[in-house]
C-alpha cells in the first residue's frame, strides 16, 4: 500500500498536473498565448487536430457571447425592466397584453451564460496545459503524441476523463445549473405577489434570510420548531433502520439459517412494491376508520366509536411515522448490506475461528468495523436522505396535523415538505429557496465534520 502512495505522489509532478500559475511562470510565449488563443501551442507543434478542436470550441463560445450572452448578462443584472402591460387596441376595441420582460428567464439565461463562461475558462487552462506538455516534451526531445495517441490515451492514463465526461455533463445540466438558479432566487423577491410573466421581481439581498431567522416573525416561529423535529426525525430514522437492517441481514446470512433466498424475498417484497403504494396503504391502514382501528375496536381495546389518532395527534403522528419508516427502511438496509457482508474476506473469519474467537467477538472485531468502514458514506447519505425525506412525510401525514401557530406548516412537516408547500402551494419561491439553503448549511456542517473523521475517507485502502 505504501508503494501506491509514493507512486501517486510522483504522478503529480508530471507536466499534465501543472497548475495555471506554474504554466504562466514556466511556459514560453506560445504556451502563454494558448490561454487566449486556444490550441495555439498544439497547432504550431504538429498536433493540428487537437489544436483545431480547441480553437473551434473557442470560436463557438464567442459567437454565442456576442449574439446572446452579453444581452443575457445585462438582463441578469436588472432582472428585466419592462413590465407586462395592457395596451388598448382601438381597431379591435379591446385591451391587449404587451409582452414585458420575464424576470425568471432573465435569471435563468444569465446563469447559463455564467456556467458556459466558467466552462470556457476551464478550457483555456486545458489549452495552456496541453501546450505546456508539448513544450516540455519538445525540450526533453521526446516524441510528440499524434491525435491517434491522444485517442488511445483515453483507455489508459486519461481513462478518468473519458469515463467522467458524460456523467459530469449530466450533473452540470440537471443538478448544478438548476441549483445555482434556485440559490439566486433566495436573494430575490420572487414570491406569490411577484409572479412572472405578469410581474417583475428584483434583487433584495439578505432580506429573506433575515425574516426567516429573526426572532419576532411568524416565519421564524415556524422555522425553529420544524428544524428541531427534522433533526429528531433524521437521527431516529437513520439509526433505527441501519441497526435493525444490519441485524436482519446477519440473521439471514448466518450459517444455520435455511432457505436464505426465501427469507430475503419475504422482506424484499415490500421493496418491490413501489414506495408510494406502501405509503398510501399504510395511511389507509392507520386511518381513523382504517383496519388497525377496526381491529382494535373488535378486540375491545378501544370503544366502538373511538379511534386511535395515529395521524391527527402530533405525538402519535410522529411515533407512527417513525415506526412505518422502520418498516420501509429495514429491507433496504438488508438489501444493501447483504452484498457487502458477502464481500468480507472469508479468510478473516477463518483466522478468527482458528484463534478461538466466538460469534460476538467476530461481530465486534471484524463485521462491525468492516461494515462501518464501507458504509459510513452510505450512512451519511441516508442521514441526508432522511432530512430530505419528502415521500414518507408527505404521503403519510401530509405534514399534518395542521397548526395555527405555523406559517403554512403542520406539526410533522419536515423542512423539505414545508419547502414544497411554500413553493408549490404558496408560490413563495424565494422563501422555499431560503429553506433549501438553510437545509444545505445544516447538512454540510454536520456531514463534512463527520465524513472527514471516518476511516473510509482518510484511508481508503485499509481493507484492500
Amino acid at each position: 500500500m505504501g508503494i501506491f502512495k509514493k507512486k501517486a505522489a510522483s504522478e503529480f509532478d508530471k507536466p499534465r498536473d501543472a497548475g495555471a500559475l506554474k504554466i504562466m511562470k514556466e511556459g514560453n510565449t506560445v504556451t502563454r498565448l494558448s490561454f487566449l488563443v486556444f490550441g495555439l501551442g498544439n497547432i504550431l507543434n504538429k498536433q493540428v487536430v487537437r489544436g483545431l478542436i480547441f480553437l473551434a470550441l473557442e470560436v463557438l463560445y464567442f459567437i454565442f457571447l456576442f449574439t446572446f450572452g452579453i444581452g443575457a448578462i445585462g438582463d441578469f443584472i436588472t432582472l428585466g425592466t419592462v413590465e407586462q402591460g395592457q395596451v388598448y387596441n382601438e381597431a379591435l376595441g379591446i385591451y391587449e397584453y404587451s409582452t414585458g420582460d420575464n424576470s425568471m428567464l432573465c435569471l435563468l439565461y444569465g446563469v447559463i451564460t455564467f456556467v458556459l463562461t466558467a466552462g470556457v475558462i476551464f478550457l483555456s487552462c486545458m489549452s495552456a496545459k496541453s501546450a505546456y506538455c508539448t513544450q516540455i516534451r519538445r525540450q526533453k526531445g521526446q516524441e510528440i503524441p499524434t491525435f491517434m495517441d491522444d485517442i488511445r490515451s483515453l483507455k489508459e492514463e486519461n481513462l478518468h476523463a473519458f469515463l467522467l465526461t458524460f456523467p459530469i455533463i449530466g450533473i452540470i445540466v440537471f443538478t448544478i445549473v438548476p441549483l445555482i438558479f434556485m440559490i439566486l432566487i433566495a436573494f430575490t423577491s420572487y414570491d406569490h405577489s411577484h409572479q412572472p410573466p405578469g410581474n417583475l421581481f428584483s434583487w433584495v439581498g439578505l432580506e429573506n434570510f433575515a425574516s426567516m431567522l429573526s426572532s419576532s416573525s411568524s416565519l421564524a416561529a415556524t422555522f425553529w420548531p420544524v428544524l428541531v423535529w427534522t433533526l429528531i426525525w433524521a437521527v431516529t430514522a437513520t439509526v433505527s433502520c441501519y441497526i435493525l437492517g444490519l441485524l436482519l441481514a446477519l440473521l439471514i446470512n448466518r450459517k444455520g439459517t435455511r432457505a436464505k433466498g426465501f427469507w430475503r424475498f419475504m422482506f424484499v417484497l415490500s421493496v418491490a412494491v413501489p414506495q408510494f403504494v406502501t405509503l398510501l396503504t399504510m395511511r389507509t391502514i392507520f386511518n381513523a376508520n382504517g383496519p388497525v382501528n377496526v381491529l382494535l375496536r373488535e378486540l375491545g381495546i378501544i370503544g366502538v366509536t373511538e379511534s386511535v389518532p395515529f395521524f391527527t395527534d402530533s405525538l402519535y403522528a410522529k411515533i407512527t411515522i417513525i415506526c412505518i419508516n422502520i418498516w420501509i427502511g429495514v429491507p433496504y438496509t438488508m438489501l444493501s448490506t447483504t452484498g457487502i457482508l458477502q464481500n468480507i474476506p472469508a479468510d478473516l473469519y477463518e483466522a478468527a475461528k482458528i484463534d478461538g474467537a466466538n460469534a460476538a467477538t467476530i461481530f465486534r472485531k471484524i463485521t462491525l468495523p468492516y461494515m462501518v468502514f464501507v458504509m459510513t458514506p452510505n450512512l451519511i447519505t441516508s442521514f441526508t436522505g432522511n432530512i430530505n425525506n419528502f415521500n414518507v412525510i408527505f404521503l403519510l401525514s401530509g405534514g399534518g396535523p395542521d397548526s395555527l401557530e405555523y406559517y403554512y406548516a403542520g406539526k410533522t412537516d419536515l423542512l423539505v415538505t414545508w419547502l414544497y408547500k411554500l413553493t408549490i402551494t404558496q408560490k413563495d419561491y424565494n422563501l422555499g429557496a431560503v429553506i433549501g439553503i438553510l437545509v444545505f448549511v445544516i447538512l454540510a456542517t454536520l456531514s463534512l465534520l463527520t465524513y472527514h473523521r471516518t476511516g473510509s475517507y482518510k484511508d481508503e485502502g485499509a481493507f484492500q
Partner: protein
Amino acid sequence: MKMKRFITNSACHILLAILSVIWVLPIFYVVLTSFRAEGGSYKTYIWPKGFTLDNYKELIQGVNSKIQGGTSIDFTRWFMNTFIIAIFSTLLAAFFVLCVSYVMSRLRFKMRKPFMNIAMILGMFPGFMSMIAVYYILKGLGLLETGTLKQLSLVLVYSGGAGLGFYMAKGFFDTISRSIDEAAYIDGATKWDTFIRITIPLSKPIITYTLITAFMGPWVDYIFAKVIMGNDTKYYTIAIGLWTMLEQEYVEYYYTQFYAGCVLISIPISILFLLTQKCYVEGVTGAVKG
C-alpha cells in the same frame, strides 16, 4: 452442543417468521382489497364481503371516465410508458454510476478529492428544490413540445444527476483487491480492459443493487413526472396515473382498481428481483481472493 445449536437455529427461524408476517401483512391487505367486490373506499370491516376479478379487467381494458370530463383510465398504456422510461433511465444511470465509482475508486488524478467533496455537497441540497429550474431548462431546450420528447426529458431527469450517487458502488470497488488489477497490468491490459473485463464481472452484487435502485425511480416518482407531464394523460407514468385515481373526486369510484393497479405494477419489479437474486447468493469473495 448440537442441542444448543438446534435451539438457536429454531429461535432464529421463528423470529424471522414473525418478522416476515409483519412485513408481508400490509402487502397482503393490498392484494385482498384489489379483489374486493364492493366498490367505495373505507369499510368498517377488514375481510371483503365478496371477491371479483372485475377490478383487474376494468383496469386492463381501460375505463372511460365515470365523471364528466374527467381522466379516463388507460392503465396498459401508462404501464408501457413507465416501463420504457425505466429501462432507458436505468441503463443510463447504471452506466453513469459505474463509471464514476470506478474512477473514484481506482484511478488517481488531481481533481479526484475535489470531485468527491463537490458530489457530497450537491447531494445535500433538497432534490426537488431545483425542480422548477429543471422544468424551465427542459422547456428552453425544446424538450417539452411533444409527448415523446417529454418522455425523453423524464429519462434525462431520472438519470442526469445519477453520477452523484456513486458512494455505494465505490465502497464496493474499494473492497476488491488491487492485486488483481496489478496482475492484469503486468499481462498488458489497459486500465479500460481492467474495468470492463475484471472489475465489472467481479461486481455483480453491486451492479444488481445499482440497477434495482435505478429501475425503481420512475415507478415511484410522482413529483417530477407530474411537473413534466402536466395534463398529458396519454403519456402519464404509472405513479401519476394511480395517484389520479386516488384524488378526491375519483377515490369513491376507483379505490379498488387502484389496489389492482398496485398489484400489477409490483409484479415486474418482483420478477426482476427474483432474476437478480442469485447474484446475491454467491458472494464475490471466492473469486476475488488475491
